[in-house]
């Protein structure tokens, strides 16, 4: 019997005087206990009867675009509701997923290669049947191959968008010529002491330290030099920012003149009319984001939703909203007018102009480097 009906029936009996107060409360309590005890098992019993899928992403315009172009049509077609959650950062989200029960979280909009590898290492991956996701045909192979390097025999995610973490600068104080001349070294230029920013992410700090010391970010040989570059940046920086909103605020309010920044966020600042330049120095930090299906999820229902999300109209709307190019191959799909103008966009569909982080190299050193960065950041 439905619990609401049970409550209403008992309440009616109580109001009619057929039930004394003590019995009424006792029966309500018993119903609560029974419901609490049976719910986990009922979930297992109903596991095949999917009524909802949970999606977690970055919120804002992206969520709105997903809701309008993917979630609502998906619900209309399948009858399955999409519960839309948001998170502030990938690390925080992984901590939540690890401490949750299997099946609580289903699909997440994650950092393409780092998070993919981390989730696989924690045994949180599933095996997708790509035959159920026909829109995967439209996705750039270069993005999918990065995942195949980690799980050669299967995929647990589909690529969704990509971008770069390049150099953002206020043109009022730094010219385009100066930026091109100095490149990543401008972040350790004494002339801008107190007006330099940086993301508090250890990977980005080390990536740029590699560029500043003339090393390839996927093969840093002189770690001491890299840490010294991070120390130099730390001493010149005004603030390490922790979110896209903070990055935009620091640049827009002219608290800082130069920092590395996310291509989409800088494009958003430019759209707002701020005279902020964006420059991808050689070996600038390229990255991709994916839609990852987490272990314990109803895989077939998720595959169907992924197909809706990869549909060109959805991908393009999301891409235009967040200012990051979609994973769709521009040589196969007409991406409209705006997307080819976005920073980091690659019209060839090969992404050869971008440098992506080698997940095996970076994740293999994560434990040591993330901890060392925490110390270096605080003056050690």
């Amino acid at each position, binding site marked *: 019997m439905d619990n609401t009906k049970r409550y209403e029936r008992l309440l009616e009996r109580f109001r009619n005087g057929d039930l004394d107060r003590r019995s009424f409360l006792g029966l309500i309590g018993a119903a609560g206990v029974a419901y609490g005890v049976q719910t986990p098992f009922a979930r297992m019993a109903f596991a095949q009867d999917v009524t909802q899928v949970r999606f977690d992403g970055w919120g804002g315009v992206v969520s709105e675009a997903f809701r309008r172009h993917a979630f609502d049509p998906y619900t209309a077609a399948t009858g399955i509701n999409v519960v839309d959650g948001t998170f502030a950062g990938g690390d925080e989200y992984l901590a939540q997923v690890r401490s949750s029960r299997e099946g609580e979280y289903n699909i997440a909009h994650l950092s393409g290669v780092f998070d993919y590898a981390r989730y696989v290492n924690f045994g949180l991956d599933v095996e997708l049947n790509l035959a159920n996701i026909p829109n995967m045909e439209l996705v750039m192979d270069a993005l999918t191959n990065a995942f195949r390097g980690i799980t050669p025999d299967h995929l647990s995610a589909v690529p969704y968008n990509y971008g770069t973490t390049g150099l953002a600068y206020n043109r009022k104080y730094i010219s385009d010529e100066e930026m091109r001349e100095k490149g990543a070294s401008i972040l350790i230029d004494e002339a801008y002491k107190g007006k330099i920013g940086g993301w508090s992410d250890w990977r980005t700090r080390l990536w740029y330290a590699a560029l500043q010391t003339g090393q390839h970010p996927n093969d840093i040989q002189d770690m001491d030099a890299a840490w010294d570059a991070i120390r130099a940046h730390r001493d010149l920086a005004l*603030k390490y920012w922790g979110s896209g909103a903070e990055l935009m605020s620091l640049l827009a*309010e002219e608290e800082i003149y130069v920092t590395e920044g996310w291509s989409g966020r800088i494009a958003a600042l430019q759209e707002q009319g701020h005279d902020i330049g964006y420059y991808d120095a050689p070996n600038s930090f390229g990255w991709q984001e994916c839609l990852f299906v987490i272990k314990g999820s109803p895989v077939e229902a998720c595959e169907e939703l992924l197909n809706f999300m990869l549909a060109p109209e959805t991908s393009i709307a999301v891409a235009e909203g967040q200012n990051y190019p979609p994973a769709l191959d521009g040589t196969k799909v007409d991406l409209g007018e705006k997307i080819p103008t976005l920073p980091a966009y690659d019209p060839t569909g090969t992404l050869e102009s971008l440098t992506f982080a080698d997940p095996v190299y970076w994740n293999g050193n994560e*434990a040591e480097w993330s901890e060392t960065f*925490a110390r270096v*950041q605080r003056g*050690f």
Partner: protein
Amino acid sequence: MIFDFAICAHVQSAPSATQDVAMSVEARERRQPWVLLAPALGAVTLLLLVPLLFIVVYSFWLRSAVGPDTAGFHLDNWQRALTDPFYRYILLNTLKIAAITTFFCALLGYPAAYFITRSSGNKLILLLLLMLPFWISYIIRTMSWINILGSSGALNTALMSMGVISSPIQMLYNEATVILGLVHFLLPFMVLNIYVSLDGIDTNLEDAATSLGATRWQAFTQVTLPLSLPGLAAGGLLCFVLGAGTYITPLILGGPRDAMFANLVFEAIITQLNWPMGSALSLLLLIVLGALVALYNRYLGMSQLTKGLG
């Protein structure tokens, strides 16, 4: 003879039955507080003690470079937390920032509390104004300083428009702004505690002191101030403990180097996914702050603190 025995037995059993009734009433009275406390104790056990136990267990596990943590009984995390100069430095810096914050809260909070206590008629409005900041999110209140002290914030704009400065002064993102943000957050706790203490002091005592020849200042320093010290101490303890456990303020208002111990816990658990080390660090902070609370309880008692909170 049989009848005599029966009477005798009845006479002997009467006081025993009374005793039994008295004992059962006494037992019920003894049980009653526990019955009433049971829901609260159950909640504390389930929501505080059990999770704490998990954290204790986790602190003895080991983080593996990739994949799930290694269960077992290892002292590595504790050894590092207790011997590594990095953690010691951050812990001492945290205690220093909390102490400075507490000092400024006391300095600013005492006159405010004194004013509220001595004001006639509008006490309620003043207390309401004091509570008003709690209705706004702590994060929003902290971020408001960016609009006040930022390069294009209210203060710099005002100074520049008055011609006092020609270019903005860099006021944000340093240890001073972290302390400022903490004082802003914690000041109401200090004022409330001192207010409760001052409100309980008979004002005739000050009058008596002045009538005996003391100046107003002497009456304050030798009568009112000593009597209000328990409130000041309770406010100090609250401000110190809350200040030492914060991580949002340094994150928003601090520079690259500014961090407090709670930031290390956050980073260990969220960024580095090193839950065992994060557990050891959070327990270390708990032990240090718990020791301070225990010291306070030993010498001043917790009653003043609960008065202030009530």
